């Protein structure tokens, strides 16, 4: 019992440390990437070399800021909302396979769990918008509710092709199935690559919308809604929403990496002795780098594409992505059936 609690506590502490450090790095990277894309320098003073300490300084500032709650606000909901959002982002990390044997809990239904918990984040955002006693916040919350409820369908269905291909919901089992002969049996290079490429693009767009990243950042559109659902938040509670956004970006990038880009596999993994430390380090680095690359693309998209209008967001979700992802799931199932028939003949 106590050993169980202790090991759980250690695993959670490691995850928490990873989320915090990765989020600080992503905030710095986002400002630098934005700078490059807009022909600016980005943060370049704090800490000397290239402004590397900017995020650390920002975090200390956020921790020390006054925690304000409006007089008319629903205090309990206002205080609970960042906790719900943060806890759900935290729970997402539990099923990510960082490396061989490096996973907090190898849940059989890993992908399903991620979809389920990601939908809980929405409740936290709505709670924040409602509890704030501010019409901009409520508008932001309503947009979040409408947007996420509609993009959950294409997101879930776009995950079907790899799930059907590997025949498992577990991210670890899917990664292990992609080792191949040269560490390159990735789903993107498999016999079903012609399904894998469009389904990956679909997944990526739906994940952008689910994470309310630009061009789908309607719930916090600053030119229309001040800051949307987190207008009234300050200090550490605000930073929880910030942390959640970057944590969720990483999680969805990691799911994309694990299902389409071979997870921790890299070319030449077969040369290393299984279970060796070198293999563990390189495999983990390969997984994290793939996920970071997808996060970078998310940033790239944010600073390149203009924000959609809310009706355009809904049209794209319901009239284009949902039917497309349904067709994709059907085609993938058909292809698996054809292969099954071929194997029998």
């Amino acid at each position, binding site marked *: *019992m106590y050993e169980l609690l202790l090991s759980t506590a250690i695993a959670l502490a490691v995850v928490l440390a990873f989320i915090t450090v990765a989020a600080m790095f992503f905030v710095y990277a986002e400002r630098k990437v934005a700078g490059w894309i807009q022909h600016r320098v980005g943060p370049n003073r704090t800490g000397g070399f290239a402004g590397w300490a900017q995020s650390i300084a920002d975090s200390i500032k956020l921790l020390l800021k006054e925690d304000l709650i409006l007089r008319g606000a629903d205090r309990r909901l206002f205080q609970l909302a960042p906790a719900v959002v943060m806890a759900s982002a935290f729970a997402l990390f539990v099923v990510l396979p960082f490396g061989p044997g490096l996973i907090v809990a190898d*849940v*059989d239904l890993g992908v399903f769990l991620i*979809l*389920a918990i990601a*939908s809980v984040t929405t*409740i936290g955002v709505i*709670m924040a918008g409602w509890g704030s006693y501010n019409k901009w916040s*409520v508008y932001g919350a309503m947009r979040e509710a409408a947007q996420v409820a509609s993009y959950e369908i294409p997101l879930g269905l776009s995950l079907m092709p790899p799930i059907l291909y590997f025949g498992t919901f577990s991210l670890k089992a899917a990664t292990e199935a992609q080792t191949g002969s040269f560490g390159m049996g990735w789903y993107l290079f498999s016999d079903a690559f012609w399904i894998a490429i469009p389904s990956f693009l679909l997944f990526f767009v739906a994940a952008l919308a689910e994470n309310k990243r630009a061009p789908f950042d309607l719930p916090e559109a600053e030119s229309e809604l001040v800051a949307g659902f987190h207008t009234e938040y300050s200090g550490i509670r605000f930073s929880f929403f910030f942390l959640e956004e970057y944590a969720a970006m990483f999680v969805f990038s990691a799911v994309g990496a694990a299902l389409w880009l071979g997870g921790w596999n890299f070319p030449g993994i077969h040369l290393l002795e299984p279970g060796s430390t070198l293999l563990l380090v390189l495999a983990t680095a390969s997984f994290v780098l793939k996920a970071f690359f997808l996060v970078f693309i998310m940033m790239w998209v944010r600073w390149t594409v203009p924000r959609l209008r809310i009706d355009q967001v809904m049209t794209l979700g319901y009239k284009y992505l949902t039917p497309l992802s349904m067709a994709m799931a059907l085609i993938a199932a058909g292809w698996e059936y054809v292969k099954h028939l071929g194997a029998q003949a």
Partner: protein
Amino acid sequence: MTGAELSFAVFTALALGGALVALFETSVVRSAFAMFGTFLGVAGLYLTLGADFLAMTQVLIYAGGIMVLYLFGLMLTKPSPHERNLRRIGLAAALAGALAILLLVQLFTGEHAGMPAPENLPAPEPTAEAIGLAFLRADSWLFAFEFASVLLLATLVGAVYIARRRPEPRAEELS
């Protein structure tokens, strides 16, 4: 106290606490958020019983999907802090309560009474594959299941058609 007992206690407290708050809270939106806690607690209880697929479906459909729809509907209606009047639904509440008691009595004394205690349960194993295979069996209820979903879809389309505001006829079309 074992891990199973601890998680049972936590999830039961969450489910019952959420249900009580949802009952006695006067603000409808707050009640809805309390129900979110109940949904999560029930999902946790499913998990302690080894029904992992059911637990995650509960979170995905109820805590994530239906809750969002509830909240969406509640926020679109006119807000007022103390809008619930329990006296007007007295008869309905009494009926529902009687039904619930009947169900509970049936559960504890009926032919399916005597569920195994948690420690006698078989070790939890993944259920997703078993559920999928059961659906594909020849004597499964797959057809009825799919038929019900088609019926629901038709209902949805009908509701949208009825609720949709038809565009006003334009002046040139009238003349």
